[in-house]
């Protein structure tokens, strides 16, 4: 099995998986705590619509994916802020609308395009050096912004109105968070695909949530779980010759259910019931 690691494609895949796993699980902490779970799912489908339009028109697919993803989250955030619509309703509409657009764009393509389906189902093993470089750049940007605005993101996840009242520019930080979610989705699109990318964001943070009451520890656990399951998932998929995206997600899901069993929060709830 060790000879696998000597292959260039395997090294690129593992690096991409580690990068995507770490980044998704980091932004996932804020997504879970701020209650934006559905936003990520909607964004991934909007980004996929962008990819299909990019291929149809001959434009850079990732750039169009970023535009679609960011536009979707901004429209959703704006509608919620205006009090016009709940976040889950607006994202539900945009989610299905962008997926319908993606199907139309695929239908308009004259020939079958395997790369487009790669973005839908994920194909980490086919990540090229160029793509890895681009992903690295985007991941560095997202990571840098997360670190720069860490305390503000934490505060708005806890209570956005209290943050605003305390002098934190909470509204702008909320839109920054939405933008970072969209960028992260695009970073991860090629690795795990539009259908499964959101699991990479949601599951590691939700797993870590079961294990601790401290935000710092939760973040650390989330990144460790996200990175480890992504890398292990790629190895498992290669050894057993199964698709990489689903193997990462299923592995992360197994870890999540294990965390439910050993969760100190579960023990606390049980003991409270006994009182």
């Amino acid at each position, binding site marked *: 099995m060790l000879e696998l690691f000597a292959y260039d494609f395997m090294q690129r895949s593992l690096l991409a998986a580690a990068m995507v796993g770490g980044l998704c699980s980091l932004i996932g902490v804020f997504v879970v*705590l701020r209650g934006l779970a559905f936003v990520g799912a909607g964004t991934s489908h909007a980004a996929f619509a962008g990819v299909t339009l990019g291929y149809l028109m001959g434009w850079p697919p990732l750039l169009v994916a970023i535009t679609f993803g960011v536009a979707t989250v901004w429209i959703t955030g704006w509608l919620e802020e205006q009090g016009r619509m709940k976040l889950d309703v607006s994202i539900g509409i945009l989610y299905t609308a962008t997926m319908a657009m993606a199907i139309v764009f695929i239908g308009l393509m004259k020939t079958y395009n395997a790369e487009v389906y790669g973005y839908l189902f994920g194909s980490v093993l086919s990540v090229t050096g160029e793509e890895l470089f681009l992903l690295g750049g985007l991941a560095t940007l997202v990571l840098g912004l997360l670190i*720069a*605005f860490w*305390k*503000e993101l*934490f*505060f708005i*996840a*806890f*209570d956005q*109105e*209290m*943050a*605003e*009242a*305390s*002098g*934190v*520019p909470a509204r702008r930080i909320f839109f920054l968070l939405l933008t970072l979610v969209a960028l992260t989705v695009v970073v991860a699109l090629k690795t795990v695909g539009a259908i499964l990318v959101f699991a990479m964001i949601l599951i590691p943070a939700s797993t870590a*949530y079961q294990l*601790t*009451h*401290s*935000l*710092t520890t*939760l973040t650390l656990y989330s990144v460790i779980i996200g990175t480890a399951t992504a890398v292990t998932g790629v190895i498992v998929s290669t050894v057993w010759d199964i698709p990489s995206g689903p193997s990462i997600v299923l592995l992360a899901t197994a870890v999540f259910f294990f965390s439910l069993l050993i969760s100190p929060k579960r023990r*606390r709830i049980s003991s409270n019931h006994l009182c």
Partner: protein
Amino acid sequence: MPIGARPPIIRFDHASFGFPGVTALEDITLSIEAGEFVGVIGPNGSGKTTLCRAVLGLLPPIKGQLHIFDCACQELRCRHRAKIGYLPQKGVVDRNFPVTVFETVMMGRYGALGLFHRPGPQDRRIAMESLALVAMERYKDTALGHLSGGQQQRVFIARALAQQPKVLLLDEPTTGLDLPMQHNVIELIQHLHETLGLTVLLITHDINMIRSRVDRLVLLKTRLYAAGPPADVLQPNILEQVYGKGLVISDKDLVIVGDYHHHSH
């Protein structure tokens, strides 16, 4: 310094607040002076929380003006807002959020620190001092969700104090607490007002709990019905205008109103 001789820190000038088609507060003219302890009372839907949001600078007036620290409320900048320590109503915040007591209190420093600045040793010292002021320093590493309701309120008061505020704004701080804990929290607020010289704006349903502690009471029901010393405001003819005929003043001067939210103790 006697009341009336101190500079106003919050000044409503014929100010109205609300949303398109709905006026939650109308034509409010009121000055709150530095160092005052003011209780805001009124029935449900009387505009108490709207007043709170206005003072926080979250809701600009649709008519008239509101000045806070001599600055129009819609122009309140981050540094102004950081001077208002705010305790939101219980239930607004997810109390099971994965956060320790110390992490919660440190959030009080974030507004004052500004963007791109990391909390340093001085901020940690201020957070610890704030915890000490509410006698919660030994719980600093405890998860917020593991504390009782009263202890959580103390932690949120410490978070507000960590801002080193000039004004402490408390929205129903005793709701959901048992009676001894309600007294405990109100005594703590009074102690902080006296020792730190904070201007306190306390929004509550519980008239009897605060009547002997505040300098002034403000009685709201969309409009400002009365503002003055508790003895002047808690007159049957004034209270009946706001609470209706269901109100009783007992022989021990306790105010009892018909609404289940307003039980006296």
